[in-house]
């Protein structure tokens, strides 16, 4: 069974109120056409888990402008002035998470871990309400795992079983979010038949990928 689906079927998997993870770093390695299709469909009250909120006209930032989120977890929102406006005016709840902590919370969520211990954020507002754990005399913050209903991901190339390869700086959060979501959808720039990706070159094994959209056919 191959994992290819249509854009129509893909966006119908996302429902109002869902928590979604979106790959990409300032719109590099973001599934742009999946985002456009979701905006067209018009889902609402979503919770977003993403490194950043991109730009008003690029990446996941377009969904911020379309007011599709009630809550956002991100490490950086400064490049999208609409996120800043919604935050300061209390329209959207924004939780700022250190970047290295965010990726580890996602990794923990996908990999069966109860959390991670990190020194990042100790002594800052990030530690508020969290447990501080002492290991061999060193203090760490306990950061809990994160999971989502849906992960929307980008890859350079996918085979029909969902094995993925990447180019340049597009790996970022795309490599772990699939593991941490109930359903993962990958927008691949190119889909190849079985054998089209050498097993040695696979970056994300297909086990973490449920559905693939063939970007070349859009």
């Amino acid at each position: 069974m191959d994992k290819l689906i249509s854009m129509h079927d893909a966006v119908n998997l996302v429902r109002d109120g869902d928590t979604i993870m979106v790959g990409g770093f300032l719109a590099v390695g973001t599934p742009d056409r999946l985002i456009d299709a979701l905006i067209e469909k018009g889902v609402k009250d979503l919770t977003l888990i993403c490194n950043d909120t991109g730009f008003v006209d690029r990446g996941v930032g377009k969904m911020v402008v379309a007011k599709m989120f009630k809550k956002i977890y991100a490490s950086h929102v400064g490049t999208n002035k609409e996120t800043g406006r919604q935050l300061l005016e209390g329209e959207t709840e924004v939780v700022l998470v250190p970047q290295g902590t965010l990726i580890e919370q996602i990794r923990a969520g996908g990999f069966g871990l109860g959390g991670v211990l990190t020194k990042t954020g100790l002594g800052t507002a990030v530690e508020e309400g969290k447990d501080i754990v002492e290991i061999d005399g060193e203090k760490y913050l306990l950061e809990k795992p994160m999971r989502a209903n849906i992960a929307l991901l980008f890859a350079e190339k996918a085979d029909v079983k969902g094995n993925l390869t990447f180019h340049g700086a597009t790996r970022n959060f795309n490599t772990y979010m699939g593991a941490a979501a109930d359903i993962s959808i990958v927008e691949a720039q190119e889909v190849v038949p079985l054998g089209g990706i050498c097993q040695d070159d696979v970056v994300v094994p297909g086990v973490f990928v449920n559905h693939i959209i063939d970007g070349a056919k859009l």
Partner: protein
Amino acid sequence: MMDKQQTQEFIARRVAMELQDGDLVNLGIGLPTLVANFIPEGRDVFLQSENGFIGVGPAPEEDEIDPCIANAGAMPVTIVPGGSFFDSAVSFGIIRGGHVNTTVLGALQVAENGDIANYMIPGKMVPGMGGAMDLLSGAKKVIVAMEHTAKGAHKLLKKCTLPLTAVSAVDLIVTEMGVIEVTDKGFVLIEYNPDYSLEEIHNATGADLIISQSLKPMI
């Protein structure tokens, strides 16, 4: 007087002298990014970009831009031979794990014990910490590159008033007025820009400034 650009380049040039042969270095967005232009010839310095690679090279020509190769500020860059791409978990493993020798960041405020605030002004500007908290906790050496004051308002303080990005993290501060070490005793001026008097530098600093026994002119 130097204009804004000259001031930034002056600071960046001095910071670049701190980078050692073989260092892995992470440069923050803005002024710190300029440091790459002044790395002394012959020093083999690898630059990390926290969005996922080591070996950041110069900006490409217009017709050679690859949309998949951008720095952590979304500016198109290149990757040098010997570099490598990786995901955010590896990138922050490198950062938190102490594998970055030096990180250079800007700051809104730095306190005399090395506390730093650079990620938000409550009620006004909330860009977020990005990778800064991880870099401050993991990098072996933290250099703050910034203008000495914010249009006259003190940025070097006894205690930060803005939300902290990290506690006791800063090792060295380079401004257009001088180079300051953060020590157990507080700020120590080790180099000064002869364009300013020591009195001017004192007045521009909102904390005690110890003058090093071996004080010398910058660069």
